[in-house]
């Protein structure tokens, strides 16, 4: 177990270094380099040259990378001249709101997907199974912004049940204060992630049902309920732990889209706004943050897997 952990943590550190290199390359991809990220698109060549000299961007690339890495380790993600604030300060304000949105959708979709998937596995090839499979297939193939639009048309434009726009506010408290505005964005994101979770839950439950210990439990004469909840579910849930970790990037992606559909004031909306206003420092800051989150999420998922399933440890 310890050896596995050490190897896995070491691997993650290597990948994190990779992420930082990608961030570094992305910054230098800009015609004009980091100076343009900082000073904006219209910076004069002279301003760029002065900036480059003042900040050491005329030094060799390796030196520059080490400096960049040093800044990252100190939590310095650059400075957004468009918003006139350090990127880390912007993120500290915006990220909790996005975590609220994505987190509640994640929890809800897992809570819904587990019973649906189990039911599908038990009554395989029944009407409910086909219906649930078709629905998740359809949701899976739908652009998430379109789903959001349909929900807006149905529940905001035609019936006025929920507001079409997410609550506005700069703190998480102001957002929670208007829960009705959260319904549609959370519902959109929940449906999107439910689509993939229920498919995995179904196949994971089917696999668990085919195991020997289920047959043993049946042979012992245990009730259907005991078999399902005590024996099958616990085993079928293990892959879901990994799946939740692995689905972080796609959840964050869907979050970006949903935030811009509902004008939800979070990191995703900032990202899209930053792309249109060419605020490259903020774009890169968010990319690095998401990259780190994903790597850490995958690491935690793998550790959870190893803790839950003793077979992994001996591999």
């Amino acid at each position, binding site marked *: 177990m310890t050896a596995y952990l050490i190897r896995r943590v070491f*691997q993650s550190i290597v990948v994190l270094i*990779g992420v930082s290199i*990608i961030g570094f390359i992305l910054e230098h991809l800009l015609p004009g380099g980091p100076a343009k990220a900082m000073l904006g698109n219209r910076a004069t060549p002279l301003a760029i040259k002065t900036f480059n000299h003042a900040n050491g961007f005329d030094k060799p690339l390796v030196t520059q990378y080490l400096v960049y890495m040093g800044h990252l380790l100190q939590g310095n993600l650059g400075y957004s001249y468009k918003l006139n604030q350090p990127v880390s300060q912007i993120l500290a304000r915006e990220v909790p709101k996005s975590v609220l949105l994505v987190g509640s959708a994640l929890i809800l979709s897992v809570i819904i997907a587990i019973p649906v998937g189990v039911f599908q596995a038990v009554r395989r090839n029944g009407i409910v199974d086909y219906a649930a499979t078709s629905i998740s297939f359809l949701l899976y*193939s739908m*652009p998430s912004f379109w789903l959001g639009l349909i929900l807006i048309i149905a529940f905001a434009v035609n019936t006025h049940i929920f507001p079409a726009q997410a609550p506005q506010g700069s703190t998480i408290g102001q957002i929670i204060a208007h829960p009705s505005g959260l319904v549609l964005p959370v519902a959109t994101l929940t449906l999107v992630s439910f689509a993939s979770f229920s498919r995995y839950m179904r196949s994971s439950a089917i696999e668990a049902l085919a195991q020997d210990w289920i047959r043993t439990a049946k042979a012992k004469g245990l009730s259907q309920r005991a078999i399902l909840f005590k024996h099958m579910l616990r085993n079928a849930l293990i892959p879901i732990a990994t799946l939740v970790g692995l689905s972080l990037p796609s959840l964050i992606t869907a979050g970006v*889209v949903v935030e811009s559909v509902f004008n939800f004031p979070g990191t995703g909306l900032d990202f899209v706004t930053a792309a249109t206003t060419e605020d490259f420092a903020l774009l890169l800051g*968010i*990319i690095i943050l998401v990259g780190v989150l994903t790597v850490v999420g995958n690491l935690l998922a793998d550790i959870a897997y190893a803790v839950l399933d003793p077979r992994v440890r001996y591999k």
Partner: protein
Amino acid sequence: MSELDDLRAPIDPQQEAEALVDKGVPAGGEAFETGSQFKLILQTFLENKLAVVGLGLVLAAVIFCFLGPHFYHTNQVTTTYNINLPPGKGHPLGTDQNGYDVLGRLMVGGQSSLEIGFSVAIIATLFGVAWGAVAGFLGGIVDTVMMRIVDAFLAIPTLLLLIYLASVFHPTLKLLIIVIAGVSWLSPARLVRGEALSLRVRDYVKAVRVMGGGSRRIVARHIVPNAIGTIVVNATFQVADAILVMAVLSYLGLGLPPPAANWGGMLSDGVNYVYAGYWWLIYPAGFAIILTVVAFNLIGDAIRDSLEVRLQRR
């Protein structure tokens, strides 16, 4: 010389046996499945009704987008005053905010959506397969380095990377295809690397090596062909994903600039009229995207199922 070539030709026991079966010669003892593997896969594929539906939908989409404009002539170049007309005579699906006929625009827009989908899938698959096959075949430190690079890219969500690149380089159709392909080659690379790892220790690969076959030959003639199922399935999903990602980019205003049409861009324009109730600017393009993506996903699923059947019958 030609005799030597024949001697050097790698012997794949399965292919050899199948060749015999095809000639009507029993391959000794337990017979192989009659008919080639390809036939078997095709058969299972066609038995799957959903797969046939998917294939039909893709063909319909291609015909609609590429042949449609030859039969249904519309003005998609100059703007008119007939803006936001509801569906009716002359415009079966109405017109949009520039006065373009929506049905005609669906055809033209679909062309670029499909072109992007197919081109991305082909480029990403070719590059990813080469990357994965080399990493898996060589193994060791090369494999570790190559796969950590893939991991690092996988850690950054595709869409974020795309949005960044689209805001740095102002997109043209070719550039978008390259950029989307540039972030899509990771999953085929991973899959093929996994296959290559298991294939390179098979007996027939060892046999090729014993007979003096070079690495390039092993990768190109044995590893890639044997992983072809996984590759094709993934490529199908790639088409679907590329169409979706293109739609999202256009929706966010980072797609192709106005004169060009695509389904995502049509939706992005339609969004402004959600409150006005102009449903014909939202539903047709949306359904076009969903139907096409569903079709490719159905085909991918079906091929995967038929490959599993092949493996079971082995």
